[in-house]
């Protein structure tokens, strides 16, 4: 930075290309030799009241005893400003970073430094219940967009000095701030190092959501339709994961927090499981696993059986199914594909259009597909029932909806072309892919394959809290996690 206030302001103005929201409040500080100063802010990012009360008022009403700009600068820092957050800096990059983060910058003529004053006052959505992770019992708080509020939500739940927030910046243009969050006594240093490296090598220009980073955080050679990166909008879920040695990544501007490492069995766990009685939670877990298999396999198996192996249908069902299928003009594979396709279109439309119209789409869908198409003989009622059952089951494990949809579609096509044999082989491909996948070095299918009896207390069953609390299994202690993790911890 320069010693001249004018030069500094000109440089910043040029950098912001005289953007409309770049504002400068000039002032003259009263001293024996009056000194020029300026408050630089980005409009809308700072609270005007706070600037007036804790920055401008104290500055203008104060009589500086020193004469040199450097000493006046020091006096401002120590005796004038009443704001709780003050940072001194001396580069234009820092000036940009602070100003775009909602800080007010104070520049004094004759000094090559500036002061960033924490006066953030941008408007944001308040803490509310996350719609995608609704629970019956438990906290109703969900993450929101500002990073600092999300940090508070975690800190309020883990009041331990072990909890560490480590700041990083990603996105060469967006300069998005993020926080690595972990419990230093629980986390594996190797996992942490890997995550830091991956974030540092991320060459994105802008990071507007957590989804931008997930692909950079996946392990090399682990390409899969299943994600090795967990996402949650719930502080209680994130805190639970942190105690198991995982790392959370909070990204400014998004309520979706990334959790690493992430395992397949975690998709079947929810906060409610730990609030409910163990026997009921176990029942729900088994229900979720069954629903997952129904959602993936039911339409594919139905297609394969109807097309190639009708003898596998029980006699009564065979008669009804064949009656129903014989009255429709399309082959069963095409019928199933079309219904799934139409269903996905309606689901996508329902998501994107305003809520009141969503009901209309549902009604149209139910009437057109459910009633008219069957009565007109375009599709069979048995096919419709199969696809509808699979569709409902796919919502039981909603985080797995994307892979379920792709797999369901694939199994229908494979079942239609190759029959049951094709489905078995396609399952082999999926299984091999999942078994080869790792999340930051931890096998994605951990607890199941590699099998761990100890971990089973929280997979198919949910053991009672007395057994669960005996010992928390850290994620780096799972079998066949890269050797170094286990050795170093």
């Amino acid at each position, binding site marked *: 930075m320069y010693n001249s206030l004018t030069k500094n302001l000109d440089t910043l103005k040029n950098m912001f290309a005289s953007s409309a929201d770049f504002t400068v409040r000039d002032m003259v500080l009263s001293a024996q030799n009056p000194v020029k100063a300026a408050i630089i802010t980005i409009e809308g990012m700072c609270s005007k009241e706070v600037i007036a009360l804790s920055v401008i008022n104290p500055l203008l009403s104060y009589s500086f005893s020193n004469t040199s700009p450097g000493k006046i600068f020091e006096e401002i820092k120590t005796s004038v400003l009443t704001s709780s957050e003050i940072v001194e800096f001396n580069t234009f990059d820092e000036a940009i970073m602070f100003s775009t983060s909602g800080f007010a910058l104070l520049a004094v003529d004759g000094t090559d430094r500036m002061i960033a004053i924490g006066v953030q006052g941008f408007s944001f959505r308040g803490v509310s219940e996350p719609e995608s992770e609704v629970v019956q019992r438990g906290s109703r708080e969900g993450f929101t967009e500002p990073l600092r509020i999300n940090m508070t939500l975690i800190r309020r739940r883990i009041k331990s000095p072990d909890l560490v927030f480590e700041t990083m910046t990603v996105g060469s243009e967006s300069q998005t701030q993020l926080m690595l969050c972990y419990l230093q006594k629980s986390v594996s240093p190797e996992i942490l190092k890997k995550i830091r490296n991956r974030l540092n090598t991320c060459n994105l220009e802008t990071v507007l959501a957590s989804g931008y980073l997930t692909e950079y955080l996946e392990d090399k050679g682990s390409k899969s339709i299943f994600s090795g990166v967990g996402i949650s909008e719930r502080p209680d879920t994130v805190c639970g994961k942190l105690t198991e040695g995982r790392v959370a990544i909070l990204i400014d501007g998004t309520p979706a927090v990334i959790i690493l490492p992430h395992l397949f069995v975690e998709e079947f766990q929810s906060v409610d499981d730990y609030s409910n009685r163990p026997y009921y939670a176990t029942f729900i877990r088994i229900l979720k696993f069954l629903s997952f298999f129904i959602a993936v396999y039911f339409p594919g198996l139905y297609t394969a059986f109807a097309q190639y192996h009708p003898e596998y249908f029980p006699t009564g069902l065979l008669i009804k199914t064949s009656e129903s299928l014989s009255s429709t003009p399309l082959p069963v594979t095409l019928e199933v594909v079309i219904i799934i396709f139409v269903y996905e279109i309606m689901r996508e439309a329902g998501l994107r259009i305003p809520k009141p119209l969503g009901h209309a789409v549902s009604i149209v869908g139910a009437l057109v597909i459910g009633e008219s198409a069957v009565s007109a003989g375009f599709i069979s009622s048995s096919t419709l029932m199969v696809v509808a059952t699979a569709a409902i089951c796919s919502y039981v494990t909603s985080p797995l909806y994307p892979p379920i949809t792709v797999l369901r579609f694939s199994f229908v096509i494979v079942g239609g072309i190759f029959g049951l044999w094709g489905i*078995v*082989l396609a399952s082999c491909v999926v299984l091999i892919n999942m078994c080869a996948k790792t999340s930051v070095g931890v096998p994605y299918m951990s607890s199941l394959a*590699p099998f761990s009896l100890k971990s089973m207390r929280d997979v198919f069953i949910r053991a009672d809290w007395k057994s669960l609390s005996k010992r928390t299994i850290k994620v780096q202690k799972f079998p066949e996690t890269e050797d170094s993790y286990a050795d170093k911890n």
Partner: protein
Amino acid sequence: MQTKIKFPSKRLLLLIFLAGISVILLECFNLPKNASFLFNLFSLVCAFSLTALFFIPSAIIKSRTDLDFMSYAHIKTPNAIIFVSAFYCLYFVYTAEYFLIKYCDMFYKKLNSEADIFAVALVLLAVCVYAGYKGTNAIGRCSIFIFSFSFVAFLLIFSGNISNLEINTTEFLFRGQKSDFINNTSFFLTTSFTAVIFAVLSGFTKNFRPRQIAFSVGITAVLFALIMFFTSFVLGEYAFAQDYSCFLLSKTAHFGNVEGFDSLYLSISALTVFLVISLILNCICKSTGKSSSFPIVLAFAVIIFVLFICAYNFNEVKVLLTNHYILNILTFISAVVIPTFYLFSGRKLNE
């Protein structure tokens, strides 16, 4: 992919168990008409005792040096390794071909006689190439799910046949001819190809105990014995006229009106053959000195497919490639002769 991570040897033995059961699932094995169940059981015990013996040289190498046979051979005779590698690659190609042809025959006879058999082989090989490329560790993990499925499937097939059991006491008399014994033993001995797989892949494993081999071979024998028991006492005389007795067992299994367990048989056979060929492709990689390499896996899969086309166009080739006597001799050389030669010749390795 975690190629550097060693996995428990128990899992390799689980893989070997699953690979072993493909023999009985795919064999159009007719029980000798004049041989009793007890006689067949005796041949089974003899064959599996021999199979267990086939494991001994590579188990000794593993226990002493924690190395698989190929690594051991590489260290002991670095100049001759190319010939050893070439022999093992040929052996694995033969074994893969043996199982691929057997499976496609079963597919053609029992599942779909109108299917294009070359397309079936091609799709199966494509899936195996993917698995072979992903490595032994991934296949090993996958085997846990396949084992769970197979366990439930066999449980259903056996329990669904309990109501059909008709115990014939004459089957417990020791009755049979020498030629039947040789034929039976030779057939059951084909499971010994798993000893070569163990010899080549044991280097990826940790916590090896020799008793794990005995356990793995033992439970394979028990499963074979159970299948034979049900074949003898459920199908009885009918079994002599039919091939794929395990398929028939799954077809006769029922719980009231609930039938159709042959779908389970077809699924298990596809899964086990997938495991066998994937493992073999992995073994080929290992024999060439790589832990998993896509070009090598692909190249050998192409060779296997070309041989498969030849086998279905020239019957002599097919007969040659599906001869279990030849397979047994090659297995004996690969699992016993060569490793034993290495064990007792040349300089000793620092253990």
